[in-house]
């Protein structure tokens, strides 16, 4: 939203500055530095195209600074410098993103068809035929992630509300302390904890739900930490205005604070969901993995997409296995993206109309 105000800014200054680069200058600099970068790369016989790109990027930043400093003065040059750095950051992000996406799609797209999406692996000898599918894994992932989110998101949200809106004193300090520590917990440890407590001490069997418990543990710190950050950014003026109108605190939080921060909170929850959806280790330990469709997450083993990918890659390990693994990876990514879009849609729909 803020982009709309900042975009016209340069024109405002036009009459105040001594010289200005023509509008096509950045494009020209880009083309020039890419050409130079490739030239140097080719001339020096550098094999890796990564280096070509890095040289071009460096050249781009340097040349834009130099040209701007010459024509427009130092303040403008710094501005150009920052702008070019931001653009380089953008390119740096695009390259691995594009490479990774392209690679996954290229490897996985051939596997995806109606049969693959609607069949389980029951009765399929994975290493000798291309048959079978991921339906059971999709169901498993769907249920496990949903259950984990149902556990972790409310607890995480409420905890963040507590920390930001009520939190004073030792309890809040202790909660903050443990949440911090938990962000770096290896998933194996969370899995083993649930295994010891839920499956061995309490004697429950392997099930989707016991996996969800471990996933919820992994999810909570991410939800708390990101929600906390977003709640802190809600201006106090809003809260005070609400109190001044005699609105009780809980209603202020529910009606004013949370809706204002809903975009950020959604991002945080989706980050957490994305993180747990790809977890393999606790799922292997607790959900066990299965070939057949199991629609009941509370009893008997289930399958999940990351575990399926891991099995197909590391145990089947031939062309059929790779094919299924990449196909499942593609579905997994698409699944998280779809969730993301849904969540964002809801967030935008519920959020106050004009931001701030």
């Amino acid at each position, binding site marked *: *939203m803020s982009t709309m*105000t900042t975009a016209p*800014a340069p024109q405002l*200054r036009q009459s105040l500055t001594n010289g200005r680069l023509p509008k096509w200058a950045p494009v020209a600099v880009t083309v020039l530095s890419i050409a130079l970068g490739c030239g140097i790369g080719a001339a020096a016989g550098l*094999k*890796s*195209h990564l280096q070509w790109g890095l040289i071009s990027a460096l050249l781009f930043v340097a040349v834009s600074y130099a040209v701007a400093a010459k024509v427009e003065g130092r303040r403008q040059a710094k*501005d150009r410098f*920052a702008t070019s750095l*931001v*653009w*380089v*950051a*953008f390119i*740096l*992000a695009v390259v691995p*993103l594009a490479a990774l996406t392209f690679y996954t799609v290229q490897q996985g797209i051939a596997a995806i068809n109606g049969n693959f999406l609607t069949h389980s692996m029951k009765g399929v000898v994975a290493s000798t035929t291309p048959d079978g599918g991921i339906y059971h894994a999709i169901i498993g992932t769907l249920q496990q992630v949903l259950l984990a989110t149902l556990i972790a998101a*409310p607890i*995480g949200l*409420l*905890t963040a509300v*507590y920390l930001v*809106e*009520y*939190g004073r004193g030792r*309890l809040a300090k202790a909660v903050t302390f443990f*949440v*911090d*520590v938990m*962000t770096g917990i*290896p998933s*194996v*440890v*969370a899995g083993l*904890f649930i295994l010891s407590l839920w499956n061995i001490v309490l004697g429950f069997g392997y099930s989707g739900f016991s996996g969800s418990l471990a996933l919820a543990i992994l999810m909570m710190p991410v939800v708390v930490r990101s929600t*906390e*950050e*977003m709640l*802190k*950014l809600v*201006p106090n003026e809003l809260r005070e205005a609400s*109190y001044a109108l*005699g609105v*009780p*605190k*809980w209603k202020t939080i529910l009606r004013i604070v949370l809706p204002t921060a809903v975009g*950020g909170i959604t991002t945080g929850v989706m*980050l957490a969901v*994305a*993180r747990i959806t*790809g*977890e*393999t*280790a606790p799922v292997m330990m607790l959900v066990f993995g299965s070939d057949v469709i199991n629609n009941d997450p509370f009893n008997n083993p289930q399958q999940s997409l990351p575990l399926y990918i891991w099995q197909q890659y590391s145990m089947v390990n031939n062309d059929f296995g790779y094919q299924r693994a990449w196909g499942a*990876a593609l579905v997994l990514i698409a699944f*998280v*993206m779809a969730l*993301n879009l849904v969540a964002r849609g809801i967030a935008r729909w519920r959020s106050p109309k004009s*931001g*701030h």
Partner: protein
Amino acid sequence: MTSSPPATSEGRVRRRRGDSRLGDAVFFNLSRGSGILLLAVMAAIAGFLAYRSGIALSKNQGNFLTTFEWTPDAAHPKFGIAVLAFGTLVSALIAMIIAVPVAVGIALFISHYAPRRIAQPFAYLVDLLAAVPSIVYGLWGVLFLVPHMDGLTRWMDQYLGWTYIFDQSKSGVPPRTLFTVGVLLAIMVLPIITAVTREVFRQVPRMHEEAALALGATRWEMVRTAVLPFGRPGIISASMLGLGRALGETIAVATVLSTNSVLSLHLLDPGGGTFAQNIALKFNEAQPFGRDALMASGLVLFVITLVVNGVARLIIARRKEYSGANA
């Protein structure tokens, strides 16, 4: 938390109208209950780890902090975290050095620089990176990134070899190194840091930005004086979230890194290890005692995460006066 609204003592709450008192009490207790529940779970895990670690450490025949090898199930159990701690910290450090500036750049790009038409889809695309499961990062890393890092590492060896840490002692070996792992982790944590930072930048009060521009600031000066100070605590928090993932990342590191139990400062030589990776690689075949030893290493990772986060909290607290969030 310190930036919570001023008038919040429970005394005030009680003085409000009768019907709101119940709602407030319920909501307060709900949120505090969640906090306590979370605390209980986390404390239970910490206790669980400490208990298992205690079993392991009492029988360790090596020095836990300085031993390089990890053979808890041998006849003379001997295991130590020196190599693992070094590898975890170094790879996470490399990841953060690369990822934080780039992520801030991308967040700025999305929130303040990009044309709106590019910004939105691009924001979704960066979120897509967060959705990629670790195992896929691992496979992509070893099949795609490692071969592509080959030229770069050789080039670094050639021109930066004098720094010792970038010296390659053996050539012709695929760069399945701590450095490559750092780069891969940077790519993995990038979307996390970007997503949170982006949301924080979006919340920058527009008046601050407009005031800066009205005073004749260039766009960069506006960003520097209005956006970055406001976003600083958020950037740090986001980085901590990313760091958490970098420290705890398991399967991607295990797939890419060629491990050994040698503590080498040559970051471009294959070798080293990280806590989470070591747990994943040793766990499946570990005897009960070996599992306890792995839990002990998990506890160390806890402590490291704690220290790093504590430092970050201190920085946020010190810079609070500039945050402007609730000024």
